[in-house]
């Protein structure tokens, strides 16, 4: 299974920065991820089991990599897939 570039980028950012909010991911992507749209992508990734989230008191969710996400990232690094999406 080949992941879309946006999902690859999110995996890389979460691996580098640790658990993050959606807006933090947008900011650290330097314009490659867009506000609003990122939550649709994060929802899809959660359905796939790549990331998990927990609801905070202010209504925002914090996202972190799950085991499958770590493995997908490692596989992509081996395949050289993440070269273009390094944060």
């Amino acid at each position: 299974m080949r992941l879309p570039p946006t999902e690859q980028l999110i995996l890389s950012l979460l691996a580098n920065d640790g658990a993050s909010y959606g807006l933090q991911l947008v900011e650290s992507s330097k314009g490659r991820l867009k506000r609003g749209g990122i939550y649709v992508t994060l929802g899809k990734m959660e359905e796939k089991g790549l990331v998990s989230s927990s609801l905070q008191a202010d209504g925002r969710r914090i996202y972190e990599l799950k085991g499958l996400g770590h493995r997908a990232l490692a596989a992509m690094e081996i395949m050289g897939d993440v070269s273009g999406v390094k944060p």
Partner: protein
Amino acid sequence: MTGPLYGVVRWFLSVLPVDEAGRRVFDETLADWKREAKRASGLFARFVVAARAVFSVLRCLAGVSLREVTLIRQSGVLARVFLWTVGYLVVANLIVQLSPNHWTPSLAFRLYGQVPLVAYFLPVAVLLATALGGRRRTTPSLGLGLSTLLVAVALLGWGVPVTNRAFLEANPGTASTAGSGQIDIVPNPPGAGLAMAMGSRQTKPYLPTPMFGNDLTVPQLVTKIWRGPEAGGWSAIRWMSFFLAYLAACALIPVLATLLQRSKLLVRFAVLGTTVLVVGAQGGLAAPFGEFSIVWWLGAYWVPVAWMALCVAATARRFETPKVVV
């Protein structure tokens, strides 16, 4: 401080019937807006935050709609839209066939006439298919709205004008007395339909010409508007008003229909019946009073859109997303 814009957008998003994943996207986007608004100091900073947040909301609406497009097949609504449309076509063709008129519909009329019929019935088919069925499964109303809108653009913007012109050309129309002196009917050459539609065939803008009888595609209508009133520009503007209102109605109908699914039986059928009538009469709404008021003949087509928006607002309560019990 978030301000009244935030309240309006939050209310608008809360009444949209979306599934749990879509609701989460909306909630998170709004939470970001609230947090950034709290941190913004000064009028300009608040304006920047609000502008950015509105773009975020539009982007998340587009994202949720696109995601829902992939769920339409599972919802079963496509099969019901198809059945309603086929049923309507059968009945409409039977009425034409059996009506006591003095002409026999030609094969060209029967063939080319199906496209405007489908375009006319599309919003009603989506409304009936969504509101009268599939209550056990969540209807992806935003995705359905987006899909209906795209089909409507293709049908009304290109499909109907092209088939209408093909119908014009399929009918021999030019009388000639050349040669023997007797009147001969000369078949129209290819392209004559476009020449007729773009040419001097003018109607007064307020006359009740059938809206699904338009012969020009969107770019050709824009050309006609550009040429000015002498070349029938007002008629083209009038048709564009109808076209945009029809598209807005197509996008709004699945939202209203999904809300009606969860309304009380009496309310559902009363609103459904009235909406079918209002949407069905959309093409003819500009006829009465249009001669006296430019506002009416441009704005009349928006009556169904206004009606549906009112119904959505009236049934507005935060949409209860079906919970999955494990």
